[in-house]
């Protein structure tokens, strides 16, 4: 059936060097990439969503024990880490703005700062984990949480089993978050190399925007983790 063959003009425009063959124009390619990233972030929300559900159910059942367990973590470290991540989000938008306005040193400097903030976050997280490890608050064979009073009820001790569920969720949630940070650091290393090589211009800097979306999203997850895990039923 030769008459059903599609006839038409062949679009032989001057191709942008970064335009992949199956896209018609750079705009379409950029929109597809950003749309794809947003959908991926949607899957990430549902991924963490299962953990948030588990957290909510057990927090409702074992509120006092969760309060006791939460109060054993240094809230100041969590707050400091929140601030660090917020600063890193600022440097991400500055890097993109630097690319948009052809300010090369601002872009590269901001990328480096972002990664430094990311490393600082992981460092503080490491200090926190080490403390929990020393206190035998890591779930497993050596876990112990005996004779810890429930906040507001000095005469009642927290049930170590229920506290263990809190710490299990704490380690899984913050651990997965930290894993996302490490992946983010990998992405930003690659972005830094691309930026250094001069691949990003005011016209083309899609990878920066996509990587930035991921980084901000990891920040948003932490914005929720901080009050949920560190600030249950706190008392001075």
């Amino acid at each position, binding site marked *: 059936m030769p008459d059903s063959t599609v006839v038409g003009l062949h679009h032989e425009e001057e191709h942008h060097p970064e335009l992949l063959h199956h896209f018609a124009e750079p705009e379409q390619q950029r929109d597809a990439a950003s749309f794809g990233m947003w959908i991926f972030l949607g899957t990430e929300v549902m991924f963490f969503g299962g953990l948030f559900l588990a957290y909510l159910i057990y927090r409702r059942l074992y509120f006092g024990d969760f309060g006791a367990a939460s109060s054993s973590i240094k809230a100041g470290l969590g707050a400091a880490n929140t601030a660090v991540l*917020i600063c890193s989000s600022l440097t991400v938008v500055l890097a993109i703005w630097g690319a948009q306005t052809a300010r090369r040193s601002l872009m590269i400097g901001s990328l480096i700062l972002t990664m430094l903030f990311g490393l600082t976050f992981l460092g503080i997280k490491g200090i926190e984990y080490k403390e929990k490890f020393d206190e035998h608050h890591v779930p497993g064979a050596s876990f112990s949480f005996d004779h810890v009073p429930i906040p507001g009820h000095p005469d009642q001790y927290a049930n170590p089993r229920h506290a263990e569920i809190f710490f299990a969720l704490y380690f899984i949630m913050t651990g997965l978050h930290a894993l996302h940070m490490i992946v983010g650091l990998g992405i930003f290393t690659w972005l830094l190399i691309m930026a250094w090589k001069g691949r990003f211009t005011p016209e083309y800097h899609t990878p920066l925007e996509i990587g930035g979306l991921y980084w*901000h999203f990891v920040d948003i997850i932490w914005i929720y983790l901080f009050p949920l895990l560190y600030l249950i039923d706190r008392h001075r």
Partner: protein
Amino acid sequence: MSDHSKSSPLKTYFSVWIALLVGTFVTYEAAFIDLGRFNAVVALTIATIKALIVALFFMHLRHAHERLLKLVVIATIFFLFILIALSMADYATRT
């Protein structure tokens, strides 16, 4: 992300940054005041506001031509709500 290069967005970026830091400080301080069950409400409200301004300003969700992206966000939050609400409906009404 969009062609708003005429006016510099720096002012917005830095105001958002300040707002996020203030929000963190308020969350931290409010946690030590005994408000009963409203501690959680306050903390989650502030967290949601913070998440929203990160999404709207840092992730550029507020621009009109990104309606599709808003749909993705709304759909995701809707299904997350379904997961949590219907599961909690079971836990809250068990006898």
